[in-house]
């Protein structure tokens, strides 16, 4: 397959992704506006929840107009799409604010443009997710391989028990526990809410993320260890591993070059999906450690019925998942010559 085929494939997938994002946004829109209407709410009632604590009739009318809630849902959706393509104007008070394309609208709650918020918060989530992903991938795969190679040994059993713990303990619990021990008792790491962007203070950034990384990675490492172990055990039983040994290859080469590479391909798929979802917001970890990432934004937006922000985060998360899936598929083809893109 030539590079042009690959390019064509990627372009095809990207077009598909855009269509999917449109669908995601439409569904989100529908859930927000049609569902309440189906449940019998009037537009006024929907608007009333964005007015504040003194919802006078005037205030409701003004809010309806400001948020375009008085328009049919289809028009609102069109307005949203138009904003992405051509930008949007927003009446902030004494002056009109312009949000240039691609504009994802303004928050119903805070009146802030959505895209800058996403951009502002993405690095925290990215830092958290990428660091944890690296950690869980390395530790999970290492433990999984060792467990598979020493199947039935004490190490194997211990690792699998711990893995079970990792899968079943909630981050909320392990996170608060690790904070209590390592931050407030031993004072090794800074406590909750201490995250600073990398660009401000790299050292502090690192220190403040160690516990979140470890806590989040613990959960996933456990799962990846089990996956890797199962994959390795299966691969080690393959005929081509026997062939590799029969050729007289050192065991290390057999494991790393022949067995691991095959075992990792299914893990790659799961990894792409996990990382993609996390990049859309590591909700529990961000909440536990008070990291101002996309997950916190998403939760606040969902609780507050803040449609434009919910849409923004949803679209971003969907984009991450779609893109990572694409990357995984391309990588898959690169790793396994039997796989053809198409």
């Amino acid at each position, binding site marked *: 397959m030539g590079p042009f085929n690959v390019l064509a494939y990627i372009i095809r997938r990207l077009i598909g992704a855009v269509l999917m994002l449109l669908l995601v946004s439409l569904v989100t829109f529908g859930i927000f506006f049609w569902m309440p209407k189906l449940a019998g709410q009037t537009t006024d009632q929907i608007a009333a929840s964005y007015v504040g604590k003194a919802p006078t009739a005037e205030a409701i009318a003004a809010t309806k107009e400001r948020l375009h809630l008085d328009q049919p849902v289809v028009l609102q959706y069109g307005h949203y799409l138009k904003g992405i393509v051509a930008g949007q104007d927003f009446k902030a008070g004494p002056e009109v604010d312009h949000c240039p394309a691609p504009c994802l609208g303004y928050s119903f709650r805070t009146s802030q443009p959505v895209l800058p918020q996403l951009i502002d918060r993405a690095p925290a989530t990215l830092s958290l997710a990428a660091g944890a992903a690296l950690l869980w991938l390395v530790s999970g795969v290492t433990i999984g391989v060792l467990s598979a190679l020493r199947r039935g040994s004490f190490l194997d059993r211990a690792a699998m028990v711990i893995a079970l713990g990792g899968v079943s303990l909630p981050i909320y619990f392990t996170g608060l526990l690790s904070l209590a021990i390592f931050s407030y008792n031993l004072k090794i790491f800074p406590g909750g809410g201490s995250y600073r962007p990398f660009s401000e203070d790299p050292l502090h950034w690192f220190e403040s993320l160690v516990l979140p990384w470890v806590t989040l990675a613990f959960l996933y490492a456990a799962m990846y260890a089990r996956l890797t172990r199962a994959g390795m055990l299966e691969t080690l039983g393959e005929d081509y591993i026997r*062939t590799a040994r*029969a050729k007289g290859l050192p065991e290390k080469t057999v494991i790393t070059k022949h067995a691991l590479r095959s075992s990792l391909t299914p893990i790659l798929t799961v990894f792409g999906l996990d990382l993609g979802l996390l990049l859309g917001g590591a909700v529990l970890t961000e909440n536990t450690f008070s990291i101002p990432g996309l997950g916190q934004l998403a939760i606040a937006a969902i609780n507050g019925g803040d449609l434009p922000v919910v849409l923004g985060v949803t679209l971003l998360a969907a984009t991450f998942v779609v893109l990572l899936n694409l990357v995984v598929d391309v990588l898959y083809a690169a790793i396994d*010559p039997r796989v053809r893109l198409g």
Partner: protein
Amino acid sequence: MTASDETAPAEFAERARPSAFLEVRDLKIHFPTDDGVVKSVDGLSFQLERGRTLGIVGESGSGKSVTSLGILGLHNRQNARVSGEIWLDGQELVGSTPEQVRRLRGRQMAMIFQDPLSSMHPFYTVGKQIIEAYRVHNDVSKAVARKHAIDMLGRVGIPKPDQRVDDYPHQFSGGMRQRAMIAMALSCDPELLIADEPTTALDVTVQAQILDLIRDLQEEFNSAVIMITHDLGVVAELSDDILVMYAGRCVEYAAVEDAFHRPLHPYTWGLLGSMPRLDRERSERLMPIKGSPPSLINVPDGCPFHPRCPYGELTGGKADTERPELRELEPGHKAACHLPLEQRREIWNAEIAPKL
């Protein structure tokens, strides 16, 4: 492999060093499991000289493949108990360290596996896999190794080897893949080549080509070859000697001529009876061996074949209780059976041979 304390002392080993190129003595390969010990190979002995071919035949689960993997030292120490002796060109393998055995693998002894598709790594090109096999034992540059790989592919009859060297296994046809596998096995000029059902997964037309190839290469390299198969036709084609295995043991050992024309074990008769032949009338049916191979955990008392043997009753109950020794009954012809030799000859001549 055995633990080191079971290893013969150096002095004894010196005395016991055999003259044959490959000599297997009382090889036992047992696998402890939760259900009991699986005695896959249980006291197997044979010899093989350079340039000669030994066919090992038997049903599935008779211990053929386990034996070959045992010679190569491919059993996991954790779950296999190996005892006995394997002498390869004056070196005892069972007592050697895994590292010593590894260095011999691929270089002095090589193996061709049954299914070339699953036996080659799907992610690496055929060339890479041959190069890897060559370079692990030969300190040469990649370019030299690649040239060698192309050369080997050419010698096993793959057209345009300089192009196909960069293809992946799945891009080869079955026969070509087996040729590539053979090229890989022969890349270091091994003195012992073990072929484990090398043609089973192939089309009949390709089978013959592969067998021809192995024979030609054997002549060229003067290797010792162990041909493991359940197909007596293959054995007849290639082998000098035949070793018939049943329940982890050798029940008959003979030159090919003797084995086909004067077999001395009822199991061998059964195998021959199960073999389809073109020169037989179609109306006659095959004579399969009744029953199924025994469990290797609970091997039947006495002669392990007795539950399936039509002549077991003729031994006066001996077959049920006493295990028959493998005895040399004619020069170079051994069999393990309680039936008197004469009676066996009679049965063969009167009942079996005419029906084949």
